């Protein structure tokens, strides 16, 4: 459902001349599965997900989402994904219902489907009591629920979550994770980025560990742990990152480029 081929992204930068935010990333995600992108801050997770949601264009490589190419048919891609990040804002001067209605209409839903969809989502996420309150008066947790509802209103087959629990308290974060699990069980194709190991462990069927724009390792949790001598994902993660850093340093001293470690 999601096929990513050799995706690269470079940004111009004042200090270093150019930043390689993403370097030859490739992976696939199937329907009914949660694919985790696990990596520290600045690893390239957000860049990757922004490219998949067509906000950014890749420097090279491409990806197909539900059969649509992100470069050739960005509109088609946007119509088939729901995107949610920890930093997405809401319009303060709109109510929860208006927000969701607005995006539903932009997705081309007719009024019957729209109100049915809103009723269902608002009930599932128990949002009815604040449905007509202005977003500016909502708590952080409520706002994130509005964002989730906004991402789900057009019932997309693919969902992209970019650190959706950032800044949320434990209770709300748990509710978000539960929602993601429910969506997976409904057969959605989900890609979920996080820097929190426990979230990845709990939620993801398969994971990719990403660092400095490259995928260091990928596979199911069991595959990853079997490949390493570590018993726990976090230790494995640290191992990979430190191996990578030493490798980089050696290569820098011999002045040759590192070869990228491939994903699945």
């Amino acid at each position, binding site marked *: 459902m999601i096929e990513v081929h050799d995706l690269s992204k470079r940004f*111009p930068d004042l200090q270093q*001349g150019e930043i390689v935010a993403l370097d030859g990333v490739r992976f696939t995600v199937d329907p009914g599965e949660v694919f985790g992108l696990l990596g520290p801050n600045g690893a390239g997770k957000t860049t990757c997900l922004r490219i998949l949601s067509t906000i950014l264009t890749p420097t090279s490589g491409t990806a197909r989402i539900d059969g649509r190419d992100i*470069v050739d048919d960005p*509109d088609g891609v946007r119509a088939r994904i729901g995107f949610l990040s920890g930093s*997405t804002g809401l319009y303060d001067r709109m109510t929860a219902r208006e927000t969701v209605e607005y995006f539903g209409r*932009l997705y081309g839903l007719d009024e019957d489907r729209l109100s049915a969809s809103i009723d269902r989502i608002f009930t599932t996420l128990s949002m009815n009591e604040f449905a007509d309150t202005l977003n500016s008066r909502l708590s952080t947790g409520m706002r994130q629920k509005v964002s989730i509802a906004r991402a789900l209103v057009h019932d997309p087959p693919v969902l992209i979550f970019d650190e959706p629990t950032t800044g949320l308290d434990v209770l709300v974060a748990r509710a978000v994770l539960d929602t993601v699990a429910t969506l997976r069980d409904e057969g959605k194709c989900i890609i979920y980025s996080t820097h929190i190991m426990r979230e990845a462990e709990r939620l993801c069927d398969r994971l990719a560990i990403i660092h400095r724009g490259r995928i260091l390792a990928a596979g199911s949790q069991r595959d990853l742990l079997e490949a390493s001598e570590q018993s726990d994902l976090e230790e494995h993660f640290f191992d990979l990152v430190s191996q990578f850093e030493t490798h980089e340093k050696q290569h820098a001293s011999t002045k040759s480029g590192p070869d990228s470690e491939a994903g699945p």
Partner: protein
Amino acid sequence: MTDRPRLDFRKIRIVFQRELRDQLRDRRTLFMVMALPVLLYPALGIGMLQMAVVFSEKPRTVVMLGSASLPSPQLVDGTAFAPRWFSDPDDAQRLTVETTDQPHTSPESARRLSDAKAIHKLFDQRSQLIGTDDPDSPPPEKAQELQRLNELINERLRDAGIDVLVVIPDGFADSLQEINRLIASRSRTAEDPSEYPRPVILVSGDEKSLIASRRVERVFNSWEKELLRLRLEAAGLPRSLPSPVDAAVVKIVGSTQESALVWGKLYPVILVLMTVTGAFYPAVDLAAGEKERGTMETLLISPAKRIELVLAKFLTVMVFSTATAVLNLISLGLTATYMVQLVGSVNSGTDVGLSPPPTSGVFWLLIMILPLAAFFSAISLALATFARSTREGQYYLSPLMIVVMLLVALAASPGVELQPFHSVLPVLGPILLLRELLVNPTAAETLAYLPAVLGASFVYAGLALWWAVSQFHSESVLFREAERFDLRLWVKRLWTHKPPVPSPGGAITCLAIAMFGQVLLMQPLAGWLSSLPEPDRAKAAIWALVAQQILLFLLPAWMLTPALLSNISRTFRLRRVTPSTIALAVGLAVALHPLVQELMRHLQWFFPQGLPEGSQDFLKTMLGPTQPAWLLLFAVALTPAICEEFLFRGFVLSAFDRPGQSHVAVLFSAVAFGAVHMIPHQVFYATLLGLVLGLLVIRTGSIWPGLAFHAVFNGIAVLRERWDVPTTLPAWGDWLISNNAETGLSYDWPLLLIAALAATVLLVTLWRWPSPGSVR
């Protein structure tokens, strides 16, 4: 991003409706757009009325010495001048007159009278000191004493609280009567009877006293007129004796026109200011605000295309811009009408000329709001999209306002009138047209400008909108994080990371050097040339031209290149080409020359007179047959070809040349090439040629054809000027060119037809040329 071009108007409508509702829920916007105009003008109006009441009440004090010697008719009535000497009898209240022979005097006025006498003594001293000298330029030995006396009198007048001191000399009435008698009896005297002491009106330099003194002067003037009338009557002489000519000045202005003049000046200004304000604040909220609140990302992942988002936002901004302007006009119009009525009822007969414009005027005001609102909405949206935060966005308002105010001031200056060239300038065109339409709404020659003004304004709005859309497609603009700018790092990076070809920033720096250099050099150069003896001047000017070209165009481009860039040959496209390519360029120059020449001749009416006559004559002698041909070809054809091509088709073109966007680079380099030519018709001419040159260089991938074209094109112009064409041409030439003593050399249509055919063939060939691709 390859958005398909088809627009989904449903999505535009949905986004537009949301933005509109969002803005209407924003108290700040509502205040700026609705509350401010509705409250501001009435409040200002009331304030002004109150100020007028407060400030007009205090009467000024006039002290008069020697009032006993006043002749009749009666000048002073009680403690004021008699009302009949004022054009508005109510004004008599504004001046209190204190005289020596008033019965009931307060202690203050008694003190003022004694002060007045002392001042009079000082004044007599001053008169004696001056004697027959001119008080404005006294002899040096008296200057100091005169200065001291002047200051003393001034000070005493101020301290005494006397605004105006009038001194009537003793026996003034008798002197007048004696002269009247002499005139009536027609008796001649040995000496001129006019030599008798005259009244003096003394006033301090204080602003308020000066106003009072002007009133007193007017009273004395009308009193004097009456005295003169009586004198003539007594002598049995005609009233017209002192005014044999008395030409009548008749101002034929209808009442609507007079008010239209006021409106014509005031309303375009208000319209411009309000469309800017009404556009700017919503634009900042809609673009920069969206980034700041983190909703931009949400909006970008919605299925609406970016161009649809921009259009919806543009429409929203335009609604607010238009609404602000309309509400302001209504509020100002109603306030003005009400004020006029109020003032009119108090002070009937004087028309302030501020009554609202006629219906047709209102109609044109509403029509002209549209191009202005569209233009400012698009510009504001583009600026606001560029800004990182609402705060940064608001910083951009001041430069925009300054530019707009400059244009408004330019439109208000009396020399600037509606004419073809002005009508296609942004902001200026609509203001000038509106001014004319308010005065005369149906004049055919004014209405003829309407399509041009509207068309040009919408083209500018379209360009600004295109800029806004391209901003929305730029990742670096949309996701500009608040990175800190470090000058040291930046400079270091310029050295360590030299790009192969220049950046747009580098090109703009280069152009700025060329432009400012030209402006700075203009004055000293003209001064230097005029200091030279006449015969050397033309030659010196030619060499100055060469120096200017090398210094301002070639040098910056060549100096910046090794410093900033790593690939000089790619920047300047120093690619070798076949002789046939050069031949194509030369052929194109030869074919285009007569066409461009005729086009410019036919467009002469369009441009304002560029140069004063003197400069034009100088240019003629400079480029005329007195100079050797090789020098002119060197200075006017070869040097510009090298210097201008390396700057514009080398540096600038490469800076903006990106894969798939070479047309933008051609357009920009052509406009820049036009802009450095300064004089409007040359700007047009150079831009046109810049387009051809840009195409030539981009398609062939080499600067040499551009150079060849430029040199040949200018060379033909030089030779044509020098060619001493016989007035009678051989038969073969007669149908190609004609030489008229008045209009000079011109090309006939057979030649133009051949040239047009040749140019078309060559341009099509060039268009289909396999392009070597972008320099990047």
